[in-house]
C-alpha cells in the first residue's frame, strides 16, 4: 500500500471529471474506489491499472449507476417518510396538529379575502425557506467535492435532488389550488365550503408530507451529503 502522488491524484480526478457525473455520492464512491485500488499497486503499474479501472467504470456504466441511485434515493426517502409517518403521530402530536388546524379554520372563517390569500401563502413561504436552508447545508457539504473534481457539470447530492423535487411539488400544488378557481373564473371561490374543505384536506396532507420529509432530511443529514 502506498500513497498516490499529487500528479497521479490529478490524473484520477481528471478521468472522473471527464465522466460528467452530477451525483456527489457517485463521484466520491468512484473516486475512493479508484484511489483505494491504485494505492495497492506500484507506481510503475499506475497507468495500466488506471486503464483497467476505466474499462470497468465506463461513461455509460457510471451514468446508469447515477440514474439507479437517483431512483433508489427516491424510494429511500419515500419509504423513510412512510415509516416516520407511521410512528410520528403520537397522541400529543396528533392533538397539537388538530389544535393548529382548528385555529386555522376559525381564522379562515373570520378574516377577509385578502388575509385568506395571505394565509395560503404562509406554508409556501415556509417551504421556500426550508428548501433554501436544506440547499445551503448540502452545498456546504458538497463544496469540497466540487472543488476537488473540476467537472463541467454541477455536482450535487442525489438525495438533495429528490428532496428538492418533493418540496417543489408541494409549492406547485399550492399554486394550483389558488390558481385553478381563477382560471375557471369561479366567483367568490374563497367563500365556497368546497374550497375550505379542499384547503383543509391539502393542509393535512401537506403538513404530514412536509413534516415527514423534514424529519427524513434531519435523519439523513447526519450521515449523508444533505
Amino acid at each position, binding site marked *: 500500500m502506498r500513497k498516490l502522488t499529487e500528479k497521479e491524484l490529478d490524473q484520477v480526478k481528471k478521468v472522473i471529471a471527464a465522466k460528467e457525473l452530477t451525483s456527489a455520492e457517485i463521484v466520491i464512491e468512484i473516486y*475512493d474506489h479508484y484511489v483505494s485500488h491504485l494505492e495497492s499497486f506500484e507506481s510503475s503499474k499506475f497507468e495500466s491499472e488506471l486503464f483497467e479501472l476505466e474499462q470497468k467504470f465506463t461513461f455509460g456504466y457510471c451514468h446508469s449507476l447515477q440514474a439507479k441511485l437517483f431512483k433508489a434515493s427516491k424510494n429511500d426517502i419515500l419509504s423513510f417518510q412512510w415509516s416516520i409517518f407511521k410512528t410520528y403521530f403520537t397522541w400529543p402530536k396528533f392533538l397539537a396538529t388538530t389544535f393548529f388546524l382548528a385555529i386555522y379554520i376559525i381564522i379562515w372563517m373570520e378574516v377577509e379575502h385578502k388575509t385568506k390569500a395571505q394565509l395560503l401563502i404562509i406554508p409556501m413561504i415556509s417551504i421556500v425557506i426550508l428548501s433554501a436552508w436544506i440547499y445551503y447545508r448540502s452545498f456546504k457539504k458538497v463544496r469540497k467535492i466540487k472543488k476537488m473534481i473540476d467537472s463541467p457539470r454541477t455536482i450535487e447530492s442525489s438525495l438533495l435532488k429528490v428532496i428538492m423535487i418533493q418540496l417543489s411539488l408541494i409549492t406547485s400544488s399550492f399554486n394550483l389550488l389558488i390558481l385553478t378557481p381563477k382560471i375557471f373564473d369561479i366567483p367568490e371561490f374563497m367563500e365556497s365550503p368546497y374550497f375550505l374543505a379542499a384547503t383543509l384536506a391539502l393542509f393535512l396532507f401537506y403538513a404530514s408530507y412536509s413534516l415527514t420529509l423534514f424529519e427524513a432530511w434531519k435523519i439523513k443529514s447526519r*450521515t449523508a451529503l444533505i
Partner: protein
Amino acid sequence: MSNNNLIKGSLQTIILKLLEENEKMYGYEITQRVKELTAGEIKITEGALYPALHKLEAEGLLSTEIQQVDNRVRKYYSLTKDGQKEVTSKMSELQGFVENLQRILTPDLKPGFNI
C-alpha cells in the same frame, strides 16, 4: 473462474453477511474481502456491487455514513436493524438452496445432509 452468473443471485446475501461480521465497510473493501476469503476464486464486479449496495440502502437494510479519510471522502455502509434481521433469513434461504442443489447434483446423498 467464470462464476458471475452463480454469484449474481447471492450477492445481496454476501454483502449482508460481510457487513454483519464487520461493523462498517466501503465498496472497494467489500470486493477485496470477498477476494481474500475465497483466495481470488470469487471476484465481485464493480458493475454488480454498487447497484446492489444502493438497492439495499433504498430498501432500508443498509445505512450509509460519509467520512473524511486521507484527503478524500469515503462512503461507509453498515447494517440497519432491519438489515440485521434480514441476514439471518437470507442466510438460511441460501443454505437451504445450496442443500437442495447438492441433492440434485448428488442424488445419492442422504436427506439430512448439511453443508
